[in-house]
């Protein structure tokens, strides 16, 4: 067992961590303190938060100096198994808070297993992917990773904690780093793009954009960038006239189908023919592009089904408000609207500590937990928000670069997992408060009030710091 050397501890990360925790407590205090000032009473959030912070510090010390670092990789599967079991169990015996059953009540304390299952998943992923023979091209390995990710996500979805489930998608970034094909990420992002295009504009527009993208991609893959692009542009221009033709002759054959069906039939048939031809000529790239196009068509036509049937009413409403399809400042849009008002009214330098009217007077709901960023925006202004943003960015990039320096693959991959967990939480949470993403309730790491979240991130981070302390870096 290597000797513990305090000089090897990453004090920059610890400094950022402490800074965020302290700043977080100040904002929790500001958003929950009453008129009569500081009262030392356990019913006050800011007092409870102090207890959580204190206990988190104790945990950090425990992990850094007491628990041997070899434990984690050794208990990867059992730890993961217990966490998944707890995730499922909580859906049945947990306490319901804000419509999701994801809390265990232990006396006055409440714990949310979804926060801790991230740690188990990160350890198991690192353990699996760091094995010498592990390869994403091996279907068994890939399937195992997929299962490890899918199980907790499904269990969390069962608890109706959509936000926490989304965080697990962040682990795909780690997978990408470790050799998973980047196409998966690109296809995923494109799917989101076409989902939005179809909802905001129409399936017809989405089909035209898809055809243009595939057409131009094909042009480049066939080494005919100019002629191919011109042909694609010409075809798109012709297709663009379909709606007029359909409307111009209401009784004719043309108006039997709406414009989007016509466009799908024409482009789909072309793609099918090209796919068959390219298959016969063993032209794999063109074949894949055409099949991709057909899949894209299927996706576009399934958007309405997914939107209307799969998503729940409140989720639909949040997406509609985000995309500007509906305006509803008193209903679903209330949170986002009030949140924007609070942040926007902060201006450059903010209204000062305890000076916010929006956050202190409860205009923003959940302002000490999920919407803590509003308090920062209102009371500390752009200077405050950018400082926080830069702190997170520094923390995340430093974790990545630190991970990359590890000799031990397990530590490297685990470091990446910590970084993407932070990344996903920060991006989703902040984007939600500034109206760039639908309202997805997840906490802002270290800043938000909440014991589970703070404990989980402390454990997650300090396990890495402990591992890092023992590193044999390059």
């Amino acid at each position: 067992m290597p000797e513990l050397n305090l000089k090897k501890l990453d004090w920059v990360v610890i400094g950022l961590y402490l800074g965020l925790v302290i700043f977080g407590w100040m904002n929790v205090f500001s958003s929950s303190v009453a008129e009569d000032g500081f009262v030392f009473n356990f019913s006050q959030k800011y007092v409870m938060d102090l207890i959580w912070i204190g206990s988190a510090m104790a945990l950090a010390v425990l992990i850094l100096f007491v628990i041997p670092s070899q434990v984690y990789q050794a208990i990867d599967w059992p730890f993961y198994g217990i966490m998944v079991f707890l995730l499922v169990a909580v859906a049945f015996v947990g306490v319901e808070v804000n419509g999701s059953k994801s809390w265990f009540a232990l006396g006055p304390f409440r714990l949310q297993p979804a926060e801790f299952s991230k740690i188990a998943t990160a350890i198991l992923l690192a353990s699996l992917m760091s094995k010498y023979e592990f390869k994403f091209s091996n279907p068994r390995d890939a399937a195992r990773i997929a299962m490890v990710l899918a199980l907790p996500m499904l269990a969390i979805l069962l608890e109706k904690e959509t936000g926490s489930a989304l965080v697990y998608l962040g682990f795909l970034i780690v997978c990408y780093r470790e050799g998973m094909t980047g196409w998966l990420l690109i296809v995923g992002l494109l799917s989101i793009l076409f989902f939005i295009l179809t909802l905001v504009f129409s399936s017809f527009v989405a089909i035209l954009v898809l055809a243009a993208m595939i057409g131009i991609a094909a042009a480049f893959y066939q080494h005919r960038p100019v002629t191919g692009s011109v042909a694609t542009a010409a075809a798109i221009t012709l297709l663009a006239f379909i709606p007029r033709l359909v409307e111009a002759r209401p009784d004719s054959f043309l108006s039997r189908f709406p414009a989007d069906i016509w466009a799908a039939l024409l482009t789909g048939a072309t793609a099918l023919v090209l796919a068959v031809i390219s298959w016969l000529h063993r032209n794999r790239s063109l074949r894949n592009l055409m099949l991709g196009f057909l899949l894209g068509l299927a996706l576009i036509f399934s958007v309405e089904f997914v939107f209307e049937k799969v998503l729940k009413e409140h989720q639909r409403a949040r997406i509609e408000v985000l995309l500007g399809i509906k305006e509803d400042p008193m209903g679903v849009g209330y949170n986002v609207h009030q949140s924007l008002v609070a942040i926007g009214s902060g201006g450059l330098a903010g209204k000062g500590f305890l000076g916010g009217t929006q956050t202190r007077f409860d205009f923003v709901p959940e302002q000490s937990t999920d919407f803590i960023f509003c308090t920062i925006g209102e009371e500390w202004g752009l200077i405050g928000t950018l400082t926080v943003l830069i702190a997170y960015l520094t923390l995340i990039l430093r974790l990545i670069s630190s991970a990359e320096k590890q000799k031990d693959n397990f530590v490297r991959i685990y470091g990446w997992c910590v970084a993407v967990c932070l990344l996903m939480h920060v991006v989703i949470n902040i984007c939600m408060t500034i109206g760039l993403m639908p309202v997805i309730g997840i906490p802002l790491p270290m800043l938000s009030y909440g014991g589970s979240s703070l404990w989980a991130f402390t454990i997650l981070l300090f396990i890495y710091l402990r591992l890092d302390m023992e590193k044999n870096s390059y």
Partner: protein
Amino acid sequence: MDVYKNRRSVVAIAIVIVFAVIAFRLFQVQILDKEYIVTAENNALKYETLYPARGRILDRNGNVIVDNKITYDIMVTPYDVQPFDTLSFCRIFDLDTSFVNDKFREYRLYRRKIGYQTLVFKRQVTSEQYNMFIEKSFLFPGFTGVPRTSRTYPYRGGGNLFGYISEVDAAFIKDHPEYRSGDYVGKTGMEEAYEPLLRGEKGYNIYLRDAHNRIKEHYRDGEYDKTAVAGTDVTTTIDGPLQAYGEQLMRNKVGSLVAIEPSTGEILTMVSSPGIDVDQLADISKYYKDIVNDPYKPMFNRAVMSPQPPGSVFKLVNGLIGLQEGVITPASQFPCHRGYVVGNLRVGCHGHPSPLNLYQSIMMSCNAYYCYVFRAILDNPKYDSVQKGFERWKEYTESFGFGTKLGTDIPGEKAGTMPTVERYDKLHGKGRWKSISIISLSIGQGEIGCTPMHLANLAATIANRGWFYTPHLQKDTPGSPIDDRFKEKHYTLVDTTHFVDIVQGMEMAINHTGGGATATIARIPGIIACGKTGTAQNPHGDDHSVFITFAPKDDPKIAVVAYVENGGFGATWAAPIASLLVEKYLKGDISPERKGLEQRVLDGNLLHKVKIKKR
């Protein structure tokens, strides 16, 4: 060897880009967009509006005819409501439990939209109910009461005249940005005409509040608060008791009764019947549907909005024009044997001695006489054509106000209809009509339509022997002077000397004792009144009963028109009604020998005679 090492840069760059997007968005929200700062202030500052008392309306003698009374609106903040004893709540406000249940079903349905807002639960509860509620209000968390002023009418009359006030709606606010939701505005009648004086100025208290609408503190110790300024009382020219009496006389009749003080143009009484019940007027939002759906259209102010043929009353105008044009003298005589006959045309008349002079023609209301007069005016050789003659005749009639808006201060006033050369050209062919083609105008029938206000103005003009002030409702007081247009004397194109002869005829119509006078029923003991009956044919049923009168003959104090739709002869209903009003005004009471007549009028019900459009 790690072949995917370069992928960390791809990820790092992507992360930096995402953070840059977030930073840009923050810059946009916090620095570029100023809208959020304004919204934040509106969010945090609660303006508690202080509603001013609306100005009262006084009659010409200082009696309050439209007053304020305090009522309370019960407000509810559904978010703060906890289960409560519905039964005792309903008992306080005399409600049905289903009303409460329906309301709360609605609140539950729209709970997201309502949020922490406070809504009106029940409007206009009485102060007794409010006091009972306040005693027990701790039982009903989430409910509060807000004082409101509503209107009350001590003389129990004047519905159409005063008009109603109601809460402004979205469309109104769009056109009048100075109003806010929850404000009241005069919608018709005097409430509308004198809105700027009556409404007063709102004030406000500013508080800091939180999202639960909980008031936190008084903003800057009330430095920016503003007290409400009560509306100005408006003194009207109306005589309160006379107005109330007029409404009694017109009850169960359809039509108008207008009285003017000739020397000032001040309107003493203006009744449009059937009118709006004042109790309904005070709580218009509750009864609005019933009132609008009432087939007798009580909202319709017939006195200024309903043009009708004037009938024989109009002979006075033609007589005056004839005198001015020199085509007749008071001594001119024309024969009449039950009518005026030229070729196939016959304008019928009733039996009376023949021939008649001008005085007798007014007294007996001879049709033939005015056919002669009218044709003499139009066919006057000094005009080249009958069209020129007609144009001249039209100028005369318009100088009396006919066919024009008089310019009163009553909202919705109509100009009535006045035929034109073009109209007759279209009807008969260009230049192919003669005086005989439009002979109906001689006796106030045909293409002319005038409102009762026009006729009241005619009565005032004749009472003044040739001039009038534009009729108006606002009394000239030092505090609120009237518009200059009400201080301008309007002379007609007929010389004032000619009016004496017409007045003579009108006096005889009422007071001549030798027989043949048409309006003896309007005779008032001890007062010499002048009048003229009219019986206006119309396509809707029985003739309209019309009467104009003024009294006393010398130095007239009151000029009146009564227009009773489908009331038959002018002497049957209009003359008794108008003369009773005159008598009440001049003598204070009805003389014993006319009590029977008064009773007949008060009991009379003509509603069944009026054809109404079924909805």
